[in-house]
């Protein structure tokens, strides 16, 4: 059953990722990107990452895709997503070679997997790991400062002189 769900989700994900590149109209490409984000959230649910699935919907579907759509509406361009002529074949070669290398590496690696059953709900353990003792508290603080500086930098860059 879960295999069927995974196969369905991955087919939709790969198809919408290809559609983002192939579709000429940039607004429709943004909508395909939203479909991709939602299927990725479904894949997180398959992996028992419930908190990450919610965050994926909130941050990617809710915020990042809206930013991208606003950007497409405020800019206009005559040539919509034309591939660069000769470099297209080089790009195909580079991507295919990288994919072959990664898949070869995955298949030939033996991962050490413990027998522990995965956690059924992850919100409390994630909170303990992020904010508890001997956790990632300093990293959380640094991430907050980085977000603030990124927002201030974006405002400073975009402001009219």
């Amino acid at each position, binding site marked *: 059953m879960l295999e069927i769900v995974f196969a369905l989700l*991955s087919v939709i994900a790969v198809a919408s990722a290809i559609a983002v*590149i192939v579709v000429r109209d940039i607004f429709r490409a943004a909508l395909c990107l939203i479909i991709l984000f939602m299927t990725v959230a479904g894949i*997180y649910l398959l992996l028992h990452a419930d908190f990450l699935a919610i965050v994926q919907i909130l941050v990617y579907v809710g915020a990042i895709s809206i930013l991208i759509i606003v950007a497409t509406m*405020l800019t206009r361009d005559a040539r919509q997503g034309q591939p660069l002529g000769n470099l297209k074949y080089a790009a195909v070669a580079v991507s295919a070679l990288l994919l072959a290398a*990664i898949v070869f590496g995955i298949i030939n690696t033996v991962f050490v*997997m413990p027998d522990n059953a995965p*956690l059924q709900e992850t919100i409390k*353990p994630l909170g303990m790991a992020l904010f508890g003792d001997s956790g990632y508290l300093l*990293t959380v603080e640094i991430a907050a400062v980085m*977000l603030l500086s990124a927002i201030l930098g974006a405002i400073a860059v975009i402001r009219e002189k």
Partner: protein
Amino acid sequence: MFSAGLDQYLILSAVLFCIGLFGVLTQRNVIKIIMCLEIMLNAVNISLIAFSQYVTPVALTGQIFAIFVMVVAAAEVAVGIAIIFTVYRDRESVDIENFNILKW
């Protein structure tokens, strides 16, 4: 060798990453390049969470990493779109070939 659980997620992640890489290398529109960057970041997150599920099921290290990747992705999109707007005001275009202000 091939274990169906972890490997299927890793291969899906690799396929999505390479699609995103192809898009970044070939697209002309800068906004589309940002979209393809987001595809690549999502692919990496899938593999991080798959590792978290199968390799560190109790410590959840991969999920914590994925949270920080999302934070960096949000900051990256905000700054990137601000830069795109600024160059668009100057050049009236979002074609990557017109983004050559830093060229000497």
